[in-house]
């Protein structure tokens, strides 16, 4: 092990700290129990709450959680702030909807096509923009996203501004990705998609790829001088992120059974996803989910309480909340949770020592 080759004179305390705080500590017994309880609760939830509304709220949390997680890969880990992620969501939604409505191709296949197209789009968008730094990149992705929306609004072949209505099919519900009797299948599919996104991030976080991404985020020049091909790894982050976003797009299309450019390509969607990730905590595995779990119930319940679009009250609260987070908890809500839930034994002991 590298640890055994201690350079002479290295301060013991630093080594102690390094040992005490491994990058990916093994789960403690308490965390394992917590994980099992959470998994059981998630599986039991739709059967306990069998009214449509509580199921819908959870489905939305899973959907937005998937999107926030996907954005997190690009911005949180690789440090590239995209303001145009809705374009990949739209590509996913349109690909499967178009193939199903026109050629009766199963949305599951359509989803794969959408993911491939989104990855290709990410690679193309990356070509002129990866050289740009900071705000120039953010604004470039913003205007590309807006341009894509404008083009889709005028593209008659895929329905222009009126979009695509998916034909209702009542047989072979699983093959056709349409469920008309209950929301429970949607619930589990959305949960599965979220799990895919989280597992992808968890795997990426611990692999060489994750280290490269973080190196590019922290010190692009140093990363380049160490031989990391920055453009290649930025493209990989962007493509992975785009594919997950497209997957969420197909889910959305199958859930509401209609897609149009105002709903699946807007700038507001890109921003909403960004806000969720930041609110929860970017560059962390759980942060984006936490952000979605806080913001979605907020907007869904204000909508129910105040009717219609909630008189925009939900967005007022969103805006105020995100400003508060930026002012007082810039690392996101995950910071609060970590404070309450010590992540492993050593920290816990230290906590007891202080108390």
């Amino acid at each position, binding site marked *: 092990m590298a640890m055994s080759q201690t350079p002479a004179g290295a301060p013991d305390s630093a080594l102690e700290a390094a040992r005490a705080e491994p990058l990916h500590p093994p789960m403690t017994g308490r965390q394992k129990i917590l994980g099992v309880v959470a998994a059981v609760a998630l599986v039991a939830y739709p059967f306990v709450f069998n009214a449509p509304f509580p199921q819908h709220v959870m489905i939305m949390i899973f959907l937005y959680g998937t999107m926030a997680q996907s954005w997190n890969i690009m911005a949180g880990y690789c440090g590239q702030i995209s303001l145009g992620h809705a374009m990949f969501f739209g590509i996913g939604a349109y690909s499967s909807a178009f193939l199903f409505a026109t050629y009766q191709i199963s949305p599951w296949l359509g989803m794969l096509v959408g993911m491939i197209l989104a990855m290709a789009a990410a690679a193309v968008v990356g070509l002129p923009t990866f050289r740009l730094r900071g705000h120039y990149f*953010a604004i470039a992705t913003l205007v590309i996203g807006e341009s894509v929306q*404008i083009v889709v609004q005028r593209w008659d072949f895929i329905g222009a501004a009126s979009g695509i209505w998916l034909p209702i099919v009542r047989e072979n519900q699983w093959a056709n990705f349409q469920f008309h009797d209950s929301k429970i299948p949607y619930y589990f599919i959305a949960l599965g998609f979220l799990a895919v996104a989280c597992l992808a991030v968890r795997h990426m976080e611990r692999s060489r790829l994750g280290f490269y991404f973080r190196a590019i985020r922290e010190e692009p020049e140093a990363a380049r001088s160490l031989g990391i091909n920055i453009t290649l790894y930025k493209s990989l982050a962007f493509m992975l992120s785009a594919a997950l976003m497209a997957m969420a797009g197909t889910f959305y299309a199958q859930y509401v059974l209609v897609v149009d450019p105002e709903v699946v390509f807007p700038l507001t969607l890109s921003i909403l996803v960004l806000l969720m990730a930041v609110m929860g905590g970017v560059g962390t595995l759980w942060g984006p989910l936490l952000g979605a779990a806080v913001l979605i119930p907020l907007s869904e319940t204000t909508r129910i309480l105040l009717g219609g679009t909630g008189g925009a009250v939900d967005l007022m609260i969103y805006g105020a909340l995100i*400003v508060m987070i*930026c002012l007082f908890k810039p690392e996101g809500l995950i910071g609060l949770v970590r404070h309450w839930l010590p992540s492993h034994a050593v920290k816990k002991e230290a906590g007891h020592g202080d108390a």
Partner: protein
Amino acid sequence: MTQEIIIQAIISGLLMGFVYALIAVGLSLIFGLMEIVNFAHGEFLMLSMYTAFWLWSLFGLDPLFALPLTAVMMFVLGIATHYGLIRHILHASMLVQICATFGLAIFLRASAQFLWTPDPRTILDPLVEGRLDIMGIFLGLPQIVASLGCLAAFALLYLFIARSDTGLALQATAQDRQAASLMGIPTDRMYALGWGIGSACVGIAGVLLATFRPTDPEVGALYALLAYVAVALGGFGSILGSLFAGLLIGQMEALGGWLIDPSYKYVVIFSLYLAVVSLRPQGLFGRF
């Protein structure tokens, strides 16, 4: 005939170009000072348009007379934004800064929708209305007044920044905050002043726009988007860069709409932006 259409398009584009330039320069000034993009810039524009509308609707004050009052109000709003929000996130990451101003934008837009409904509001009997007919070329009078007003405000701003002591202090702060601070310049107050001036600029543009364009909570989005493009195109922080880019965008919008297809004019502008920044990542006049 075609010739007249071209001239018409060029002049209309020029008129709008000065408005875009004044909106963009407010954004650019703030960025040049502290490297923060104000994503609530469009919402500041929207607020000043509503101010003009309400002053007209409640007190019968014409926007042209309400202009100084609105400019002062927007100046105060800018300063308040600095002290209430920006000052606390100066050293935060770029992502936190983006979210803070986006959060402010969402809050302001939703508040406008909540308070004043999404219906568009029009000032019905402005002091200046109608149009000029010069040899078959029609120009709206409110547009001409707005354009001249923005040009005048731009010129004043340029003189202030280039000639006055305070303007030089602003420039010094933009170049090197620490050195400026060592020379006795109160840099925090300079930042606040930058926010005040930046919002006053967009406030003036907003009032003048309100004389011929209906106001609604979403109105700022498009202008802000064009301003981001103008600022990045001209080079973040460059004053003359934003004038040039504003005029260029005005021309692209007018001629692009005529040459290609009106619905694709913004795609043309965005493509120009992408083309310029891929060749010159620091924008046309930017210092990197």
